[in-house]
């Protein structure tokens, strides 16, 4: 394995400054992209979706929990997925491990839910095993689509 060049502290500083300029440019570019994203057109949802949560059946509107924005992650927990029927997709689980504390999103009028196909009791069991019980007030984190076909229509 070929390691990077070893240099003096001054040379390191100079190299770091050059990289930092590029990093800052990338941050500004990311801000500009987010600004453009905020101005993207939107599409109205007419379909009445039904979900299953800890408190029984809820609608897409219910998932907002009164907030203005809703982020939905389609979590792969379904037949044919690695771990079925006891566990969810390893990649999705890695994503879930990295989801920030939702209190901060809530403070900005934004709800967050995971949606999966699997039976609700299996999702709950897996959620407990993974320890994903940081402040995610019911009826939140794991919910299943019902009837299942709705998922394809909304997300595809």
């Amino acid at each position, binding site marked *: 394995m070929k390691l990077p060049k070893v240099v003096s502290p001054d040379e390191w500083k100079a190299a770091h400054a050059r990289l930092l300029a590029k990093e800052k440019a990338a941050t500004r570019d*990311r*801000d*500009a992209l*987010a*600004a453009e*994203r*905020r*101005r*993207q057109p*939107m*599409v*109205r*949802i007419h379909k009445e979706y039904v979900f299953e949560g800890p408190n029984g059946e809820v609608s*897409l*509107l219910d998932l*907002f929990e009164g*907030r*203005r*924005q*809703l*982020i*939905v*992650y*389609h*979590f*792969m927990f*379904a037949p*044919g*997925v690695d771990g079925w029927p006891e566990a969810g*997709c390893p*990649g*999705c689980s890695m*994503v879930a491990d*990295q*989801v*920030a*504390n939702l*209190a*901060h*999103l*809530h*403070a*900005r*009028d*934004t709800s*967050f839910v995971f949606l999966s*196909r699997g039976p609700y009791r299996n999702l709950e069991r897996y959620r407990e095993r993974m320890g994903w019980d940081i*402040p995610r007030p019911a009826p939140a984190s794991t919910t299943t*689509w019902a009837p*299942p*076909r709705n*998922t*394809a229509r*909304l*997300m*595809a």
Partner: protein
Amino acid sequence: MGATTEHGETHGLSVFFRDGSIIYRTYFTGGRGVETLGPVWTFLDLTPLGRQEDWEDSAEGYPQTPRYQWWRRHDEYEEAARESRR
């Protein structure tokens, strides 16, 4: 595309916006698009309202408050709301 189809499951993240009881879908990302997600800021950057901070280039009339100042310890948000009602 974050869906259950006849070809199997894929992951994905959608953003919805609510105006009263009217719901809009505003955004979707899948594949490697989710790699950059996790921190609060990365999620808010995907939403129509953004971080809702005053430095952001957002459309006219969007809610914005001074940068950084809305941040709280995660168990203190409700308390902050109670304080402000007093």
